[in-house]
């Protein structure tokens, strides 16, 4: 497919770029985002028949229109960033952890269990236990795919994907025991009066601790990838397993260890969602974030700063579209369509960052 059109003497060649300046790369992404926004606007106008400028006014209002909405946008952004950061080491190793969704739920189950059964534990200890156990919950969910990848080379993307639904069924299993009020088939807000196990307010915000945790984890994980021996081994295994073996790296060990790290962070995200935001658990606790985070991590080339940017953009549009939907009486799935369109454009534009099209005159080539 290196030649698209062989009309006359002109041929379009795809050439791999040897390198591209970050500025130019982000410029291309910006153009793609703008094109995506335009197409999305057409879609919204087609459905609602209102002035597109009004639509974008509504989106901005929905995302950052009031202090409460700003906080929700920030809260959703940092959670998405946390999951993407968790996926980073696995993806760097070319291990397709598509199981963040399940790992979040596993962490969320551990967190909810502590909140429900651990009311009498002193608050600081309970908080500590929630953080540790949710990470452990995620690790349990990540351990098996890592182990079997290491020993039998079992396809990890399918394995982790299937575990998502096992986790989802496990949540419905626990809902039977935890439902409140009974018969509602939902857990409801856990500990609404005593707020045991809820993240305490920090820096004057309910979500201060969420931000702090995500900040710490992001910095630690970035350093882990950049300056530690583990991070280096992950990069080598990702580039070539044979090279890694030749260099004396125990590939199986690295795969299992990295998967444990990755799923622990995703499990922790479960605690940030349950203890730090929703204070309940349901099958939609992960709510597709585990999948969106994959897109976020991939589009940012596993660069944490880029991930923050992409996550913020997607959440901004998501929150904005939810507002638009309720304003015009549409259902909130409109936001999936809008973000879907944007993601397609952003994914597609990566091609123009990695390759450039060159028009070549074939007659010149012959001479």
């Amino acid at each position: 497919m290196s030649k698209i059109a062989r009309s006359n003497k002109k041929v379009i060649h795809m050439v791999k770029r040897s390198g591209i300046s970050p500025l130019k790369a982000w410029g291309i992404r910006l153009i793609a985002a703008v094109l995506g926004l335009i197409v999305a606007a057409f879609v919204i106008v087609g459905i609602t028949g209102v002035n597109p400028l009004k639509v974008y006014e509504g989106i901005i209002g929905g995302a950052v229109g009031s202090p409460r909405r700003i906080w929700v946008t920030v809260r959703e952004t940092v959670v998405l960033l946390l999951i993407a950061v968790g996926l980073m080491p696995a993806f760097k190793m070319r291990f397709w952890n598509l199981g963040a969704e399940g790992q979040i739920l596993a962490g969320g189950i551990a967190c909810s269990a502590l909140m429900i059964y651990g009311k009498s534990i002193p608050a600081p200890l309970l908080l500590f236990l929630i953080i540790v156990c949710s990470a452990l919950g995620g690790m349990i969910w990540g351990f098996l795919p890592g182990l079997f990848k290491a020993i039998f080379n079992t396809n990890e993307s399918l394995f982790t994907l299937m575990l998502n639904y096992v986790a989802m069924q496990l949540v419905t299993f626990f809902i039977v025991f935890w439902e409140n009020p009974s018969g509602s088939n939902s857990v409801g807000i856990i500990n609404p009066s005593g707020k045991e196990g809820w993240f305490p307010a920090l820096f004057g915000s309910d979500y201060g601790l969420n931000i702090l945790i995500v900040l710490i984890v992001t910095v630690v994980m970035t350093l882990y990838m950049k300056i530690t021996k583990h991070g280096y081994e992950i990069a080598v295994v990702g580039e070539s397993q044979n090279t890694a073996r030749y260099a004396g790296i125990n590939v199986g060990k690295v795969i299992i260890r990295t998967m444990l790290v990755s799923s622990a962070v995703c499990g922790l995200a479960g605690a940030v969602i349950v203890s730090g935001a929703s204070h309940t658990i349901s099958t939609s606790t992960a709510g597709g974030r585990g999948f969106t985070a994959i897109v976020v991590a991939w589009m940012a080339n596993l660069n944490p700063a880029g991930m923050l940017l992409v996550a913020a953009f997607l959440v901004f549009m998501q929150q904005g579209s939810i507002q638009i939907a309720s304003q015009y009486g549409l259902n909130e799935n409109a936001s999936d369509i809008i973000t879907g369109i944007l993601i397609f454009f952003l994914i597609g534009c990566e091609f123009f960052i990695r390759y450039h099209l060159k028009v070549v005159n074939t007659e010149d080539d012959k001479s």
Partner: protein
Amino acid sequence: MTLLLTFIVAAVGQAVPLLYGATGEILTEKSGNLNLGIPGIMYMGGISGLMGAFLYENATDNPSAFAGVVISLICTVIASALGGLLYCFLTTTLRANQNVVGLALTTFGVGFGNFFGGSLSKLAGGVGQISVATSASGYTNFFPAFMRNIPLVGKILFSYGFLTYLSIVIALIVTWLIVGTGYGLNLLAIGEDPSVADAAGINVTGNKYIATVAGAVIAGLGGLYFVMEYLGGTWSNNGFGDRGWLAIALVILALWKPSNAIWGSLVFGALYVLYIYLPGLNRATSELVKMLPYVVTIIVLVVISKRNKPENQPPASLGKAYFREDR
């Protein structure tokens, strides 16, 4: 006995969308494309058929079932083909990562389905849920009444709509296509090693497009089956649930052979509804029984990777983009 009978009929009802999804995904995966957008495409196929029938029934005073069936089929085919085309354009022509595109397509497709399913009647100025009873009636009872009334056999074999029988026919055709034709051989070559196939003069890009779009259309029919025959021409948000992912799981259970998917889909369909018929289950344990299809898939996945038989493996280039000028 009647319990067993209803169980079998219910299992078949669950099996059909899975079989469509799995057949489509197998065809796609044989070309090296791991289309994780299939669950989304099934939503898109289902809602588009429903929308087509809905708009048709709203536009005429005396809608006929036959026209409703044809219109909804056409809409489903177009929408799912577009989904497959989008996936293939992004992954094959623009070489975007297959997992990322697939998951984005699923998010988009599920949102697309729930959005139009939930607000179509409102957008058209009506109230309540969409219902296309006339068109849906064309999807039920393929065989005449006297055949359906044969004791036992009639219920088990002849009580379904034409999409149920079509799913088996398509699975057999795709099996034959893959195993018995030159086209299938080309497809296998591309799935195993696109650069070798390319060197042998096989059109890698073209074949990938054909397989992916055809696979998407087949999967989309599964969505249509669900809204028309199973739900009887209406929509329930997220009603299709995780069946799209089960279809992808079924691909593994079927060891990438659509003929295996026929009995595999029955196994999954039975496991899916088993909790209703199994005696002695309470609410909690029935949730655990619902886990079974996924657990079975994981066990199969581990076992085939352990035994490492070449004919039971996923296509070697599955999930990887191909660029001729790469080393």
